[in-house]
């Protein structure tokens, strides 16, 4: 250890998942976070709050705080809270369901309406393992992504194909340096409800 050891460089970002029910939003996250896949995965229960860190070059750690829709997308009942302060979004469609791409486009419009203007969006086609049943051509989805300034990936949560890529490519687009600077300078006026003050004296007014 030397004195010049750099301070750990750490940045945290909120990532939201969007897409029609059953396109595999949770499976993608499970593959990314736990490197596992469950064929019979029911809709998301109890899986509250997933985080995953990835290491970038120059000793930088990026932590994703991942928000799953928890089923609130089914009847279009996502709360403004869901989009609030989201830095990035993975919008998922199923390459074997043409209609799911149309729904993904609607979610992207919703994001442009509700989220920060500088949000990074990755349009992600899932179920690449079902190539034989493909209904959405790569070209069509890719062109839409280019036209709208989105990242574009095709993945398989089942085999793990392309999953890591989605998150690394998002991380490359995120304002990591800015985030690190602002965390270092940010005062913390907010309080942690789980940690009451240990200062038991009555406090004087001085």
């Amino acid at each position, binding site marked *: 250890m030397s004195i010049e050891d750099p301070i750990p460089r750490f940045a945290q970002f909120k990532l939201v998942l969007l897409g029609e029910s059953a396109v595999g939003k949770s499976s993608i996250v499970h593959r990314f976070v736990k490197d596992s896949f469950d064929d019979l995965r029911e809709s998301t229960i109890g899986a509250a709050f*997933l985080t995953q860190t990835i290491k970038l070059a120059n000793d930088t750690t990026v932590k994703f705080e991942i928000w799953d829709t928890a089923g*609130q997308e089914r009847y279009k009942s996502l*709360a403004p809270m869901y989009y609030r302060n989201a830095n990035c979004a993975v919008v998922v469609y199923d390459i074997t369901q043409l209609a799911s791409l149309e729904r993904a486009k609607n979610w992207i419009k919703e994001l442009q309406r509700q989220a920060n203007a500088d949000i990074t969006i990755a349009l992600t086609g899932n179920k690449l393992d079902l190539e034989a049943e493909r209904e959405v051509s790569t070209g069509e989805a890719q062109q839409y992504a280019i036209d709208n300034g989105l990242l574009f990936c095709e993945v398989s949560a089942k085999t793990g194909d392309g999953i890591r890529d989605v998150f690394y490519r998002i991380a490359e687009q995120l304002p990591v340096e800015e985030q690190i600077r602002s965390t270092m300078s940010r005062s913390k*006026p907010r*309080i942690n409800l789980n940690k009451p003050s240990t200062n038991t004296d*009555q406090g004087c*007014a001085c």
Partner: protein
Amino acid sequence: MDENYDVIVLGTGLTECVLSGLLSVEGKKVLHIDRQDFYGGESASLNLTQVYNKFAPTRKPDQSLGKDRDWCVDLIPKFLMASGELTNILVHTDVTRYVEFKQVTGSYVYRDGKIAKVPANEMEALKSPLMGIFEKRRMKKFLEFVAAYKEDEASTHAGFDFDKNTATEVFYKYGLESGTKDFIGHAMALWSKDDYLQEPFRQTYDRLTLYFDSMKKFGGGKSPYLYPLYGLGELPQGFARLSAIYGGTYMLDTPIDEILYEGEGEDKKFAGVVTKEGTARAPIVIADPTYFPDRVSKTGERVIRAMCILDHPIANTAESDSLQIIIPQNQVGRKNDIYIAVVSSAHNVCAKGHYLAIISTVCETDRPHIELDPAFKVIGQTKDVLMGISELYQPLDSGSKNGIYISKSYDPSSHFETTTDDIKDIYTRVTGKPLVLQKRATAEEEEALAAN
């Protein structure tokens, strides 16, 4: 979606969302519906367009107020007591991971035409401009008595039995002036009327203890109140998310086409609802009063609320970014206190450089807007004012016979303690057991668990 549920919840107000969250965590299958396309019902926070549409449909917000999204205007102005029951529920359910809080900077009280900070403790009482020099000492003695009181040590009781002696009797012993009683009773014990003076001191003691515990909870001695970033509407959203995480199904923008019953007359029971999505069945429904207008009655109280947009802090408050001002009824010749809740862009509820002051009180005349005059004098010049009057409702019966459990309207009190009483009461009626909060793992604990 023709399906069966354990409980159907109608309306996404705070009461309904907390219950939905608690029941989902316990494994109940919950369907939660709101006829409106936003969360929060009567306890929502609205953006500029929504709030003008609701209260001043013929006017448009001024351009200088900035973007729609920058505004979250609370329909019901309240603060959380730092040691209160809602804070407790938030911590136990770990809904705190979705909502960030800030301490409210100041707690002020109106006396003799001016406002001054409510003393946080006996030391501050000695410096307070609210009282003359001798009164300060009497006040200090009273506060020391309250702080030292221990239930099982008779020597600390100063000869009082809190279940028998009234607040008036206790105040009398310490020789407190009526103006001092006003701010103890109204700005610390947070009574909104004077009925408490003739009641046993016990409840006033409990309320003072809650006030002082809340004051100490997060240090700083600023105020006993907390407020969520982005407004109170975050609270129902946070509990709705908790419910959804545990399997609750959410349908907004879904009016109820028909309520289904089974049985006749005395035995008529709730059975389900029909919506555009189909029929959903459940033996139990929890709803806000607007879903069952023929099963509620008016409490007789009407509350007037004035949402005032300011571009300056309130004078004589050290430019506080947030505060509560209580105008005790006696000070302005009324029967009910007037409350002013002030929040600002520091809480991401309005555009930069702006402040929101929400004035509220129980109407006592048929010209209630005139009743708010003393409060308008305190807050100074306004950019715009939007006013609304709400009628308060309560359920006609307990719901245990017909499976229809209806919440009460949000009352004019300045905090959520009565709301949490209603939540706990409905919970007990629905489940047949008192609410015992189970500690849910925090985000950090979940992460540590997942790493193993």
